[in-house]
Each structure stands twice: as C-alpha cells, then as structure tokens.
C-alpha cells in the first residue's frame, strides 16, 4: 500500500505547492488541523457511544448504537428521504417567501416612517407570539396543511429579515447620503447604489439567522399539526417513530434534520462570504 492512502487528510483539492515560507506551511497545517481535530473528536465520541451501548448491553429501544442508526438510515432511506424532501421544500419555500416579504416591507419601512410606525407593531406581534401557539389557529383557518405549515415557518423566518433590512437601509452613511443629494440622485439611484449596498451586510446576517429559523419553524409547525399520511416531513416521522417506539428511526430522522440545518448554515455562510468577502469587515480575512 502506498503511503498516500494512509494520509487521513483528503480535504486539500490540489497538491500543496512547494513553499519554503514557514508561515505559509504553518497556516496550511492550521487549516488541516481545523478539519482533522473536530472529525477525530466526532469519531471518538461515536466510538465511545457504540462501545458503551454494546458493553452495557443497553436495549436498542432506549439508546440505539450508532451502527444501528446508520443501518436504519440505510434501510428506511427511501421513505426517510422523501420526508426530508418535504421538509426541505417547506423550509426553502418559507425562507424564500420570508426574504421576498421581509426585504420588500423592510425597504418600505426604510423609505417611509409613517408606514413603519403603522405596521411595525404587527410585525412585532407576529414575532413575539410563539409559533406553537398560533399554529393550531392557522391549521383551522387554512385548508391545505402544506400552506398552513408554510405560513408558520414563514412567520418565524420573516422578522429578522424585515428588521435587519430596515435597519441596514437606514444605516447608510449620512455623508454619503448628502453626497447623493448634492449630485441630484434620483430616488431609484439612491436605493440602488447607496441604500441596498449599505443594507447588504445586515441582510446577510439576517439570512444566516432566518435560514436556521425557517427549518425550526417548519419542524415545529409539523409537530403541532401532527400530520399523518403520505405527505409528511421529518418531524412527523419523528413523532410517528416515537409512538411506535422505533427509537433507531427517530435517531435517523433526527440526524437528517441536523444535517439539513448544517447544510443551510454552510450555504448561507458561503453566500455571505461570496457577496461581502471583498469589502465588508465581517468577511475579510486578515493577513498575519
């Protein structure tokens, strides 16, 4: 066996360039460690879990071993994945609608104090009332369960986008505002070239929060709805497994929910870096 296969690090996409700079080498080492260490820790934890479950002969309906969870995931894969797809649809759709609604209303708020004063209380009421408490009502009023779930998830994800967009647009530098006035900028030019770029860092911060919240909203709403049947998401599968005492499947579904959350987090973080990386302090990598 060649030595290269024993190298546990496979993250670097290309061969490391020959460099005599020790600082560069240290930086690369640091990057490798940042991936290696958490992976090893995770593997160790899983190993310990597996060992404790087997050694103490804990029954799988109390705590299943990781191997059993993986096996369940494989066995129930198709049905679990279709549930995951339902949750993904719900999450992304509600996030999309939250972005559209939040940005549109946030812009209106930033441009008109009167409208903001009139409508802001509604936004706050929506925000502070726990979605679990409103969900039953929405489920009564809205015929389609999917639409009802969508509304619940939307309510949770909407507010951070709205408030950050409004604050962001108002955060535009006052001297730059004066400059736009002096050069006779139109309302549209001011919005396009000053207010939107100023609001972008705030919006990106909101997106990271709202992405996670949309998933939470989707899962919580489904828990409240307690839907059963063919068209169900991961939350229903968790409930259903719990009723049937199928703990390994519960864990498997839970694992999928977490992975979904992680994916959303990674995607929004990547987007933020891609959009702000070249100018905003929050995303700039410092040398040295």
């Amino acid at each position, binding site marked *: 066996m060649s030595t290269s296969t024993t190298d546990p690090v496979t993250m670097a996409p290309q061969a490391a360039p020959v460099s005599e700079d020790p600082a560069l080498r240290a930086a690369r080492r640091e990057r490798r460690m940042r991936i290696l260490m958490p992976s090893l820790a995770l593997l160790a934890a899983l190993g310990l879990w597996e060992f404790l479950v087997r050694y103490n002969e804990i029954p799988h309906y109390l705590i299943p071993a990781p191997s059993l969870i993986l096996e369940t995931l494989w066995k129930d894969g198709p049905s679990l994945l279709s549930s995951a797809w339902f949750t993904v649809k719900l999450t992304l759709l509600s996030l999309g609608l939250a972005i559209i609604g939040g940005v549109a209303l946030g812009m209106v708020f930033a441009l008109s104090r009167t409208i903001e004063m009139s409508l802001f209380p509604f936004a706050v009421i929506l925000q502070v009332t726990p979605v679990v408490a409103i969900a039953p009502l929405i489920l009564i009023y809205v015929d389609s369960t999917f639409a009802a779930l969508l509304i619940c998830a939307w309510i949770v994800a909407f507010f951070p986008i709205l408030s950050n967009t409004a604050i962001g647009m108002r955060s535009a530098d006052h001297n730059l505002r*004066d*400059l736009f006035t*002096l050069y006779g*900028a139109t309302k549209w030019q001011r919005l396009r070239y000053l207010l939107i770029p100023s609001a972008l860092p705030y919006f990106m911060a909101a997106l990271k929060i709202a992405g996670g919240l949309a998933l939470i909203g989707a899962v919580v709403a489904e828990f409240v709805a307690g839907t059963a049947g063919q068209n169900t998401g991961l939350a229903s599968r968790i409930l259903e497994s719990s009723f049937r005492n199928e703990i390994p499947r519960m864990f498997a579904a839970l694992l999928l929910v977490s992975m979904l959350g992680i994916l959303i987090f990674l995607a929004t973080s990547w987007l933020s870096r891609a959009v702000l990386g070249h*100018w905003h302090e929050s995303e*700039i990598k410092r040398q040295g």
Partner: protein
Amino acid sequence: MPLDTTARSSVQGAAQIEMSHVFKRFDNGTLALQDMDLTIRQGEFVSLLGPSGCGKSTALRMISGLLAPSSGQITVNGHAPGKGVQGGDVSFVFQEPTLMPWATVFDNVYLPLKLRGLGRKQAEAQVTEALEMVGLAKFGGSYPRELSGGMKMRVSIARAMVTKPKLLLMDEPFAALDEMTRFKLNNDVLNLWRRNGLTVIFVTHSVFESVYLSSRVVVMAPRPGRVVHDMALPDATTRDEHYRTTPEYAETCRLVSDALEGTMDDVDLNH
C-alpha cells in the same frame, strides 16, 4: 507687510456666491449663524477659519444647498443653492473620505458621472484623468480599505474633481490626517485650484493651513456664529512648499492668529 482687511480679493472676477443677512437657528434654539454677509468671486480661494461652533461648517452646508437658512438670502451663480446647476457643478469634500466601501476606487470616483447617467465606458477617460490628477492612477482597482488615510482623502478629492466643478467646497478635509500627509495634500489642492481656475471654499480651524492656501481668510467667532474679520492675503497663486518657511508666511500667520485670538475671549477652553 500691510494686510488689506477690507478689500475683497486680489482676484477679480464676477461675484459667484452672495450671502446677505443670513441667519441659521437650529431646532434646539442654538443660533448657529448670525447675520452673515459674504461675497465670493469666481476664482477665489476662501478659508472660513474659526473655533468649533462658529458656524463655518453650517455656512458651507448652506452654500451647498444641503441646509436651508432660517432667514436671509444666498445665491450661487445667481441661483438658490443646489438649484439651477447640474449635479457636480458644485462639489463637496467632507472631513471623512466618505467612500463607498463596497466599490473600487475607480467606481467611487465614477459615482458622480454615473448619477448623471454617463456609462462606464464613456466615463473612463474622465475618471482616469481625475485619478491621475491626485496620483492614484494605479489604484483604480483597489478597495478603500486597502488605502491609507491620505490616499482615501485623495480619492475623495478625485471624486469631487471628476465633474470639473466650478465651485469646490471643503469641510475640514485634512483635519484627521497626519501633518506630512496634510502638507502634501495642501499642495495638491493648491495645484488643482491654480490649474482649473475653480473657486474653493475651505473650512478649517488651522491658521497655518488657511494662510498657506487661501487668497482670502474669513475669520469667524462662536456663540453666536458670525464673521468678525475678512482678510485678503497676497501672492496666493505663487506659493510653494518654500513659502512655509518665509518670514512673510510667519507674519501673515501672526496677523491671522491675532484676529482669531479676539474671537476666543468668550470661549470656555475647558470644553
């Protein structure tokens, strides 16, 4: 050397800015400016000099049209401030560089032309010329955060000059810079003024800076803000770095300092 404190200026041109009986009272009741009369002619370099609270920035903002007077009359080229001119005929340089952090140096300088509706390609020559004027031609692709304080200020000046303004308003533009950078930029501004025949109104609290730059120094006093001296300075068009060490310069600085001294009597220095 006799200083003619009544003459308008050695530069003869048409009256470009006229302020008569201008008052400004802020909403909180502060009288920022009391009965200001000022006529500025085409081609002058006028410094508004005074301690903080003397209304010099307020006067500048009113000339730009960003602020309306409470009473009195201001005309710029025969029009109300901010009216009857194309955006960019009057340029403003703030105390901070006031650049858009998300845009490159080129795009920051391009902004005034973009707001006029000029395409990027059409504007390229003008933007490049403005950047060359301040010695930053090579930095068009950089972002503001990659530049030093002095370079950022020069980008700000290039942006102000890109529209070839007839009137340049500067509000303590170099107050936050170190002395060496300030001297360098002083010379840049002097050169721009001489080469382009524009009118400059320069707000500062530095006697040395105002004497080095101006053809005329208007000394202002606080509480309430008002004009107390109006002094024409000689030889404004022939000064160079050497002038800073001449006896004439020292003498003029002393005279302007004395004029300023009189305004400081009622200033509480503990503030």
